[in-house]
């Protein structure tokens, strides 16, 4: 089937198209240069046309989502809708049901979402859950930062063996890239402890976060992975944590990049939670300047923000000791999970309120990061869904980024606590994003960071993943109309995925199965075999499952998209 999106105003930063009135054509699921006269014409005159959105960091599938849903039924009763002829019923706000997750991203014009924390032991379940999320391509990242075998290889600085281990484990878990969460800290949590800073060793391991992050980054480059290491540094959410964050970024400064499809060697995730100054919550202030300054001066780093949206939400992370701290602060309920030799997890509900000084400070720090990182290709829009707020708030964040007037209004009329301007520089930042920058931080930038060669741009040959929004950029001043911007980006006029129209005028009109992206590393088969033989005695001794039941077989990925890379090249 051939289509022409006629007369739209196109924002396609990867192809340096910024607000040009032109047609976009696609055929058989791919973007094309031309179509025949029989092509179906979709009139999108003066509407915004962009590549479909890519969420570079969210938590949408996996055991902690299930635990969250089980222990927060009060969240599941929000957002309930009846089934339609096309969709199933929806439920949930911060932890929506699997179908709701797919529908809601699709309505916002998104096509790809990264599930940022998959413990290999729980990968089977995660893939099963991914299969029940419709309309999205999902990119799972596997957790390595507290894996016992990784700690061992990092301690002995055996980078080649570590690379082989990572290559083998990505095949086992069917994941796309390497995620590191609070390196050594989640292992310490097994002893009821945490590590503080990059050089605090894991108990009984004599290995530090610095050694783990550095070793995994070297291994990642040795494998030529499409994505860099994806790092959630130590000390998340602690006042005065920005030096740890800067140290972590700096530790990877001299790692040699081995990829032509991305620019960075480290992606710092939910940077807002890692950008705090002060010594306690009493004197906490913004460390965004230090983070943004480092990102501006160094090309090996990209970030996503994890913007606080001022909602009641559910925090969930493999940083289990941090969740315990949060539980002690909030006094609300807490769920804790141990994942054997790999990681841990915690879940705590949080009410981010504009009346609360700390939450307002967090809100302002997130916006500072967006506005102080000069190059939009280095920063991505996320809420670390659902940790800082649900993903359905992305349009609202876009409206804040495009309107200084709205930001000032929120501070002036006390929608947010005065800490938002007394302890940050947000009030002095007049920068406003334009539509092209919005397209960069939500589409082109994430695609480049993940090394995608088939999405994130309207390049002929790429997947026809396209979003059309009922916004005329020549007829609206985003600075003065934040409500219209939020409304416009909340419901796409069209969401097109692989050439199929899934959303029309904000309604789901078609539901398709999800696809799963994973990375298959070639060229280290012998080393992988040797490593497997070496780790298997410990695996058999310490895991509660047999290896035959551990690995994710192909049947768990009915719709895989495999990225093959050649190690060392």
């Amino acid at each position: 089937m051939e289509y022409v999106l006629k007369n739209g105003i196109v924002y396609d930063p990867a192809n340096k198209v910024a607000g040009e009135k032109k047609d976009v054509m696609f055929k058989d699921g791919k973007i094309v240069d031309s179509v025949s006269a029989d092509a179906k014409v979709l009139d999108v005159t003066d509407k915004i046309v962009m590549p479909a959105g890519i969420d570079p960091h969210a938590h949408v599938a996996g055991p902690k989502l299930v635990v969250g849903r089980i222990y927060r039924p009060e969240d599941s009763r929000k957002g309930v809708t009846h089934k339609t002829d096309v969709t199933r019923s929806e439920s949930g706000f911060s932890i929506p049901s699997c179908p709701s997750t797919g529908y809601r991203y699709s309505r916002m014009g998104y096509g790809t979402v990264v599930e940022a924390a998959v413990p290999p032991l729980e990968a089977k379940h995660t893939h099963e859950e991914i299969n029940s999320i419709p309309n999205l391509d999902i990119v799972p990242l596997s957790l390595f930062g507290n894996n016992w075998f990784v700690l061992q290889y990092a301690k002995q600085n055996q980078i080649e063996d570590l690379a082989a281990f990572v290559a083998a484990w990505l095949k086992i878990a069917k994941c796309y890239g390497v995620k590191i969460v609070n390196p050594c800290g989640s292992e310490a949590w097994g002893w009821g402890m945490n590590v503080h800073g990059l050089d605090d060793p894991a108990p009984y391991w004599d290995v530090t976060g610095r050694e783990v992050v550095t070793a995994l980054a070297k291994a990642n480059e040795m494998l030529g992975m499409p994505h860099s290491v994806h790092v959630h540094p130590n000390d998340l959410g602690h006042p005065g944590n920005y030096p740890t964050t800067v140290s972590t970024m700096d530790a990877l400064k001299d790692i040699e990049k081995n990829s032509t499809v991305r620019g960075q060697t480290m992606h710092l995730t939910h940077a807002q939670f890692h950008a705090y100054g002060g010594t306690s919550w009493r004197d906490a202030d913004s460390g965004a300047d230090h983070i943004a300054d480092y990102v501006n001066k160094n090309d090996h780093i990209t970030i996503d923000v994890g913007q606080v949206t001022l909602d009641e939400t559910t925090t969930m992370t493999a940083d289990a000791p941090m969740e315990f701290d949060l539980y002690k602060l909030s006094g609300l309920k807490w769920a804790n999970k141990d994942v054997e030799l790999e990681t841990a997890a915690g879940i705590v509900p949080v009410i981010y309120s504009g009346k609360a000084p700390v939450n307002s400070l967090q809100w302002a720090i997130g916006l500072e990061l967006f506005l102080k990182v000069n190059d939009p290709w280095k920063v991505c829009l996320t809420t670390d869904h659902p940790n800082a707020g649900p993903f359905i708030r992305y349009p609202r964040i876009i409206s804040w980024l495009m309107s200084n007037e709205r930001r000032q209004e929120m501070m002036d009329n006390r929608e947010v606590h005065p800490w938002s301007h007394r302890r940050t520089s947000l009030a002095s930042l007049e920068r406003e994003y334009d539509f092209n920058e919005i397209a960069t931080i939500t589409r082109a930038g994430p695609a480049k960071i993940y090394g995608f060669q088939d999405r994130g741009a309207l390049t002929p040959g790429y997947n026809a993943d396209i979003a059309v929004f009922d916004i005329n950029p020549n007829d609206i001043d985003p600075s003065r109309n934040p409500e219209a911007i939020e409304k416009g980006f909340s419901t796409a006029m069209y969401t097109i995925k692989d050439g199929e129209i899934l959303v029309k005028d904000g309604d789901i009109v078609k539901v398709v199965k999800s696809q799963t992206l994973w990375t298959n590393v070639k060229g280290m088969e012998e080393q992988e075999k040797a490593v497997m033989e070496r780790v298997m005695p410990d695996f058999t001794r310490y895991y509660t499952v047999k290896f035959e039941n551990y690995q994710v077989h192909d049947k768990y990925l009915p719709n895989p998209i495999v990225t093959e890379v050649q190690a060392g090249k």
Partner: protein
Amino acid sequence: MKTITFNQKKTSQIALEFDELIPDEVYNWEKADFEKYMVPIGNSRFPLTDYFDIEVDGSAEAPEEVKMILNGDYGRVKYIGTKMGAGEIIVNGPVDLHCGSQMKGGSILVNGDAESYAGREMEGGSLTIMGNTREFCGCSYIGDWRGMNGGTITIHGNAGKQLGECLSGGSIYVKGDCDILAGIHMTKGFIQIDGDVTRWPGGQMKNGDIVINGELGRLLEGFVQEDIVENPEIDGKDFSGKYIKYTGDIALNGKGRLWLDAEKNRHLLY
């Protein structure tokens, strides 16, 4: 004034859901509107008139002017009066789950027993149950930490487990006996139980008052006996006789107050 009367024709094994049939929604409905209304049952809807004969007398300009009289066995009808803001509902028979839940105003009188979750998350108005009620009366939604925060619930019979769980405002009166963990997690508000209580009232309570005029079977260890008070004033109400005053639950640094009739609870004195 408008009076809407439901006379039951038959019951259903699967519960009917009445949350759309509150004075706020139906004050301007005529008989024909009820006749074409499809009531939710399980995952389907069926004509309301399959189950009830409906009479409408008078007219109303606002929900406050509506009285709904429900005659029959409503033991398989859920959500009666849910989210109602005004008006009056009288049920002449038993009711199923969630009667008066999230109620904001108006009144409900149940001339019979009420199933669990009566008055859940109630914010205002009054709910009177002439019979017994089961678990979680005046509680929070499952998993939530925010329970009833306004209004009054009066139970003339007995109450089940976890009465007033997470109570943060409003008053609950129980004329009969009460099962375990009344007022668990409560942070504010008032509970008065005139009959006996099995065990553990006020577990993990942080504030508020619980008065027990009957005999308490067992007290939690987190309550500290403060004093014996004669004719105390509790939550603005005068009580006569001697009461043992406890504070707790100290397990959570709670400052809640538990008042026990001294005569009937001599076994707990030390």
